[in-house]
């Protein structure tokens, strides 16, 4: 395992060159990568910088607690449902509700599976597939969803329609495809009408079929390129997610489990309220994004990965048959141990797409969704912690609310933040393997770095609670700070 100090600043700044990739493309949000080369063109430092700052944790202070699920989801336009639901779960506790009505619980789960389905489809088909289908060094003009549509029109169409289907589920449960209001403290504000249910049922078999195909594409890609991928931006690490009490994958609710590189349990069954007992965050001066770590292991050894790869590594099984079979195949491929291949994130992500589709089908046949008992009530509390598995990984929302109903403290740990250390290591690894000793910057070389970052499907806006557009600039400077070469993508 690489130690933390290997990522820290290079002390001998003489005779070094810095390469900056800014902005990163085909990721959500703003970011840049800087790579420092010594006089022999060897990589001495590689970092992912998040260059935005939004401060949601600060400006929701003073706002009434019932506003929070609708307010904090504005962190993101890709997976707002994750923030909406996580905040709603926290506010359930604030209004003293430990158990939702069956209808409310299932409507929220349906919303969440719709969210997982559309977000994963967006990432795989729109953002990642150009690299996987055309190769990391292919013609840049083709490396986008339009390029995919021109060569693989059916695949591009599937991606678009799968995303649309997930968004329609969100619209039916939250009222809008983006930034809805469905989850309220203590329950939901609507059920699923028979008309809405039937409209969604019409296409579910097609979605399942396309999900199976997506798993096959991702699995085949990883298996065919096993030799390259085993090493590409990869390393052994710890993994974290929530799991259900019986060890099943559960994306909506559960307790925290962390495993080490061999799959041994570091901690298990940690309830959300105790998250700060097992996890801590470190701040480093060069990034707005914090670095979380497992307390018992310390910052140097306690960093961990989250997201689809982590979830497949932490859970014992998946409670839907087809996704579980896909999980077993995935597990076999990695020899029954946790899988550490960074690009296997794509495969794991598609296993979850299949799981989400199976769950959606199961829920659509559940009459509880047409129930009318939507809200529960309880005794008011002042502090709450909620955790769920967002598409990109474990999401934590922690709030304190005063007696006048105002939020007085908020702490959000988003998935991408948990992957901060790992993404930096992947960049470092790829930079060392593909850039070291090469004086010229090629576009393909840069794309290798981005491919490694993209595997995590980072949401940089969420990670800093930040704001803006997403575009890539690479700057080559000499040790005097003079710019030698700049390459920019619009």
């Amino acid at each position, binding site marked *: 395992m690489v130690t933390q100090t290997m990522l820290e600043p290079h002390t001998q700044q003489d005779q070094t060159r810095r390469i900056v990739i800014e902005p990163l493309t085909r990721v959500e949000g703003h970011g840049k990568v800087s790579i420092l080369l010594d006089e022999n063109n060897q990589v001495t430092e590689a970092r992912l910088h998040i260059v935005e700052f939004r401060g949601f944790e600060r400006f929701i202070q003073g706002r009434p607690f*019932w*506003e929070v699920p*609708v*307010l904090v989801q504005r962190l993101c336009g890709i997976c707002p449902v994750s923030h909406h639901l996580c905040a709603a779960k926290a506010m359930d506790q604030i209004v003293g509700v430990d158990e939702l009505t069956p209808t409310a619980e299932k409507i929220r789960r349906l919303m969440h599976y719709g969210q997982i389905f559309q977000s994963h489809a967006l990432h795989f088909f729109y953002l990642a597939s150009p690299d996987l289908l055309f190769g990391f060094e292919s013609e840049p003009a083709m490396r986008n969803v339009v390029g995919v549509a021109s060569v693989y029109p059916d695949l591009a169409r599937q991606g678009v329609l799968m995303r649309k289907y997930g968004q329609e589920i969100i619209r039916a449960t939250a009222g809008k495809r983006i930034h809805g209001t469905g989850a309220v403290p203590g329950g939901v*504000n*609507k059920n699923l009408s028979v008309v809405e249910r039937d409209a969604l049922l019409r296409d579910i078999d097609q979605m399942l079929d396309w999900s199976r195909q997506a798993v096959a594409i991702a699995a085949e890609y990883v298996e065919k390129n096993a030799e390259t991928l085993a090493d590409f931006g990869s390393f052994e690490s710890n993994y974290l997610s929530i799991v259900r009490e019986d060890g099943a994958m559960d994306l909506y609710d559960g307790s925290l489990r962390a495993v080490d590189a061999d799959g041994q349990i570091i901690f298990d069954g940690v309830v959300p309220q105790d998250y700060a007992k097992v996890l801590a965050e470190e701040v480093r001066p060069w990034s707005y994004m914090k670095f979380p770590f497992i307390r018992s292991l310390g910052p140097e050894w306690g960093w961990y990965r989250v997201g689809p790869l982590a979830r497949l590594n932490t859970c014992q099984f998946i409670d839907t048959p087809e996704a579980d079979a896909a999980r077993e195949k995935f597990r076999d491929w990695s020899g029954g141990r946790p899988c550490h291949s960074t690009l296997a994130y794509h495969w794991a992500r598609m296993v979850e797409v299949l799981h989400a589709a199976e769950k959606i089908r199961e829920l659509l046949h559940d009459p509880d969704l047409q129930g009318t008992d939507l809200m529960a009530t309880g005794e008011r509390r002042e502090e709450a912690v909620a955790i769920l598995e967002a598409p990109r990984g474990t999401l934590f929302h922690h709030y304190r609310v005063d007696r*006048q109903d105002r939020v007085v403290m908020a702490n959000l740990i988003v998935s991408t933040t948990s992957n901060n250390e790992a993404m930096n290591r992947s960049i470092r690894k790829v930079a060392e393997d593909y850039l070291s000793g090469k004086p010229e910057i090629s576009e393909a070389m840069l794309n290798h770095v981005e491919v490694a970052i993209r595997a995590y499907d980072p949401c940089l806006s969420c990670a800093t609670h930040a704001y803006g557009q997403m575009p890539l600039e690479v700057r080559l400077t000499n040790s005097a700070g003079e710019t030698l070469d700049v390459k920019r993508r619009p």
Partner: protein
Amino acid sequence: MQNDTVTFVIDQKEVRARRGQTILEAAEQAGVYIPRLCHLKGLTPHGSCRVCTVRVNGRYQAACTYPVADDLVVENDTEELRTLRRDLLEMLLVEGNHFCMFCEKSGHCELQALAYRHSIAAPKYPHLWPRREVDASHPDVLLDRNRCVLCGRCVRVSRDVDGKNVFGFVGRGPHRHLGVNSRRGLGGSDLSADDQAVTVCPVGCLLRKRTAFQVPVGQRRFDRQPIGAEVGAGAGSPQPSESPMQ
């Protein structure tokens, strides 16, 4: 003895009205909608927001305060007046802190609905971002002055309907703001969550606590029909927040 009925023209349409009615009331009765914000049926007209500005015999007047009379020629739905109202609405939007995206009144808000009616995608004036106080001291009612448009509805209803005088205006010009009759804030007043004053706010300033977002998107007041549609449709039935006297 004076005839009780008058006849006047609004938007080239001849309208009969009862003497003593305002132009706004008479127009509404005739199925002509005049946009308004501070006006509330059954209350003394306030004439402060000027959103109901019309031209009466060529001169600008507030339709909510101007009495009908024979031979008036009223211009209402003209490009000039729509532009004027749009400017007034835009100024209201930038002078407060209005974040529709997470406001619980979104979809029920008359200011937002008027903005949609007047095709305001984004205000052209710079936001003033004033510092405004939120008063959460009442156990069941929230007063968020960020969203106050100084319409005076709560002031009038508390005084004239609830008989409590909880609200009043404090300060002048840009410093004018909504005050309450207790040094300890709303929580120290005798306001009750059941008071009519709590129900008449056209925006998200005065709210019953813990009732937010309970109406799903698609079923909210202005999801069902745009503001003013009930007048054009001839229904004329008052909407919930317009009927504190009933």
